């Protein structure tokens, strides 16, 4: 079984795919930071940010539909901001009546809510674009370049490698359980068992997975030792950033700073 669907990378040869992962990581985070810095209700800048993301998505060729679909996955969290519409003080637009309750809807509330939702939506698209156009091992290299501790990078790299192996195992366990979750043709029997028993079974599956993982880590450790591992994390040196990479970084950074300044000017 393969749970490749876990891997968001979409192969391709676009200029975005070919850009150095370090540049992409820094600019993506910079972009998200910029988005976060733009104050509430500065719509023109939001439009610009959105245009930027969509441009890059089109340029990358991963498909606008793909990005929008994945971006929708992060949407439920918007519920957390929804109450703002009703609770932010300010000019009342209209009010909803729910039974005996009168709930006022205010202009600043609506503005606040849509700003947050829009900023979040734009940011998530940037992150999706990053992962869809960058192989994870390259993101690991980029993490090293921005000085994430080597040890942590090594751990995360190993986790990523075994994610797919173990997710497959989990999937097989789930299938095995489903295969034995049958009903007899005896009317009047309550099928499925008690909740505590079902939880115990699921817990058993989790325990099983941990146990096998710990034992697997022993085997991996032996395999690493056999190839000279001594506890120190060593890796190929980072390739040098070329002049063109620096230009991309400076140009991108400049545009982002410009956007922040512009937004502060527009914001009233």
């Amino acid at each position, binding site marked *: 079984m393969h749970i*490749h*669907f876990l891997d968001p990378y979409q192969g391709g040869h676009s200029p975005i795919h070919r850009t150095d992962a370090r540049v992409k990581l820094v600019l993506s985070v910079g972009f998200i930071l910029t988005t976060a810095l733009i104050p509430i209700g500065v719509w023109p800048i939001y439009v610009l940010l959105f245009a930027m993301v969509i441009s890059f998505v089109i340029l990358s060729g991963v498909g606008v539909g793909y990005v929008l679909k994945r971006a929708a996955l992060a949407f439920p969290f918007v519920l957390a901001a929804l109450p703002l519409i009703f609770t932010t003080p300010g000019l009342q637009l209209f009010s909803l009546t729910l039974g005996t309750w009168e709930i006022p809807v205010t202009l600043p509330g609506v503005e606040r809510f849509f700003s947050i939702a829009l900023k979040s939506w734009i940011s998530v698209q940037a992150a999706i674009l990053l992962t869809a156009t960058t192989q994870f091992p390259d993101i690991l290299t980029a993490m090293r370049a921005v000085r994430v501790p080597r040890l942590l990078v090594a751990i995360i790299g190993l986790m990523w490698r075994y994610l797919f192996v173990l997710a497959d195992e989990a999937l*097989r366990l789930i299938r095995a359980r489903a*295969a*034995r979750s*049958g*009903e007899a043709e005896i009317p009047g029997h309550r099928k499925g068992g008690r909740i505590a028993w079902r939880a115990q079974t699921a817990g*058993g599956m989790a325990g099983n997975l941990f146990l096998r993982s710990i034992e697997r880590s022993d085997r991996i450790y032996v395999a690493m030792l056999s190839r000279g591992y001594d506890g120190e994390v060593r890796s190929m040196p980072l390739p040098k950033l070329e002049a063109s990479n620096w230009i991309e970084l400076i140009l991108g950074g400049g545009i982002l700073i410009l956007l922040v300044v512009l937004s502060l000017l527009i914001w009233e």
Partner: protein
Amino acid sequence: MHHSIEIEGLTFSYPDGHEALNDVSLVIKPCEKVALVGPNGAGKSTLILHLNGILSGSGSVRVCGMKVGKDTLGRVRAMVGLVFQSPDDQLFSPRVYDDVAYGPLYQGLPLQTVQERVEESLAAVAMSDYSQRISHHLSMGEKKRIAIATVLSMKPEVLVLDEPTAGLAPRARRSLINLLHELPLTMLVSTHDMPLVKDLFPRMVILDQGRVVADGPTSVLMEDKELLDAHGLERPF
């Protein structure tokens, strides 16, 4: 009872678009024992997962005369015993007893019956002494037997096994083959173990790239060197 399997025009693609089964049709009569062979990635496991509705493609799958679908899922799963390749995936409870009892407990049978079912099925695989053992500490061959017991306890009409002999030392393998030989059930077994096919299955089905490319008596197909070669198979010797 109809302990039969009837598959008609089954086509299935994985969510990523990969077409794993392409217009597969296959009828297995009550108490027939059939081997399913083919190269890695042929679609054997995918086909097997359709037999109790874990996957569902277009086309029709009927088990024991019942069409596999949303509303029959529960009953179909009670009738088809699926044993996966790795017993480690099948045995998710700490103790052998809990695992063999899972199916009957899920069906909501009374405890008395559950108890009896567990004893019977452990006896059927000659592992009666093992009920209180911890599954994790058993040998591969023992685990395989217990895995079979976990589905026997559901009193299935049809037994479906995915690569039952993989990873077994010769003796454990032999003893498993003898066990399968004695179980009086309709059986569909996917395997790479060509000698096993020759020993145990009068009929074999060759799957390649999601299609049935041959279906007939083992004795005949095994002699067709060209056919076997074309699909990455080998004669037992």
